[in-house]
């Protein structure tokens, strides 16, 4: 795992990546390794997945643009809830992340 993904394990200024608890998330059906505290979009990018959704009308792909929760380019369906900004949402063990088309569909009732 370590060598293949795009995480920066060693850094000249920030030092080695601190040890964090390993967990698993699912992108569509695919199981991915994540570390506690990581943001969803960061885990996807670390695995080379940069296409996070498609727009409603023109079906254009989108990925991370601002990385601070402002632009909403990175929204995906997370555990059945659409339009979650994945660049600022931390992963949880067993989380199900889905590629989103347009405004997405509610798969879970929260109220």
């Amino acid at each position, binding site marked *: 795992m370590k060598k293949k993904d*795009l*995480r*920066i*394990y060693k*850094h*000249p*200024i*920030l030092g080695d*990546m601190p040890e964090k608890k390993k967990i698993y998330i699912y992108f569509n059906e695919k199981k991915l390794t994540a570390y506690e505290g*990581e*943001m969803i979009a*960061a885990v996807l*990018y*670390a695995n080379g997945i*940069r*296409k*996070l959704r498609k727009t409603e009308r023109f079906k*254009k*792909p*989108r*990925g*991370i*643009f*601002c*990385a*601070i*929760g*402002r632009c909403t*380019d990175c929204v995906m369906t997370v555990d059945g809830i659409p339009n979650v900004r994945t660049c*600022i949402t*931390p992963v949880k063990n067993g989380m199900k992340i889905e590629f989103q088309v347009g405004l997405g569909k509610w798969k879970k009732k929260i109220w």
Partner: protein
Amino acid sequence: MEEKDLVIIGGGPAGLCSAISARKKGIDVLIIDENLRPGGQLFKQIHRFFGSKEHMAGVRGFIIGEKLLKEVKELGVEVWLNSIAYGIFKDKIIGVIKDGKNTHIKAKSIIISTGATENPLSFPNWTLPGVMGAGACQTMINIHRVLPGKKVLMIGSGNVGLIVSYQLLQAGAEVVGIVEIMPKIGGYLVHAAKIKRFGVPIYLSTTILEGVGKDEIKGAVICPVDENFKPIIKRKKYIDVDLICIAVGLTPLNELLYQAGCLFTYKGYLGGLVALHNENMETTVENIFVAGDCSGIEEASTAMEEGKLAGIAASEKIRNKKWEEEKEEIRKHLNDFRIGTFGEKRKLSKEEIIKEYYERIKT
């Protein structure tokens, strides 16, 4: 509804410093920040800052951030994280989404220190995955520690573009080049020299024509421009890149100030529309103060001093006391920072803002 003496919106260097200085005056302070950790831009800045000894010169940005957080903690400042202030209503009631839930809080005094947003740049395919702001890229590599691409084209040679390029090299990426539409670089030569000497080309009088790719960025077309900034199409060139970073400036993030009814003015050297304020950082709405990048794009060093100034000035009003000498000292520091090619223009703009404040507050 909960009530606070002083609510600070935005916990970057400006907000943290205003909290520290107000808390030291015995004021009951609350910081509201949308992130999971305060510190604003500071934690992305892993390079050493310019400055003088009194202002932590040569210290890396994130180390300064850690020092401020420690102080805030020791002083017992209350901090709401994961909390977005979405509105300022009548009687200084602030609407906040805290941990996903709506809540309100009332303040005697408010300091707005929300920082800035990155300017976008549109070109064909700029919406594809693989195009991002330089600040976004910095967040990815220095905070999340993930490389968003391996071969990078940077657009813009201001200090942000130069520094993020250097940090991309440190993170292990290849920076294929920097394009700059002007005939000379926008940032400091020392920042350019430290990437040039590792072989990163800086193309002057050159722009990006388009990003190339179907589902994500696979390349870019760059092209020289003539004196009128028109691309000389026949000299365009394709380059292989998987990440295009946009570093074409920042704009003050000031919606909340606008909503609160503050008067604005346009200052190009400070990044666009900025709220008028007086020498105490107070806006045209009484007891609403402003500090840091949202009052004009400058630097962490000035953001911290403006924050202190606003913090003390707000405390004066709450406590009905005067700390004129302390404020004068801070103003002196601010002037010390606002020198040199970049600083001088910002200093003049700031002076104009204060002048216009007094002209327009009368009417």
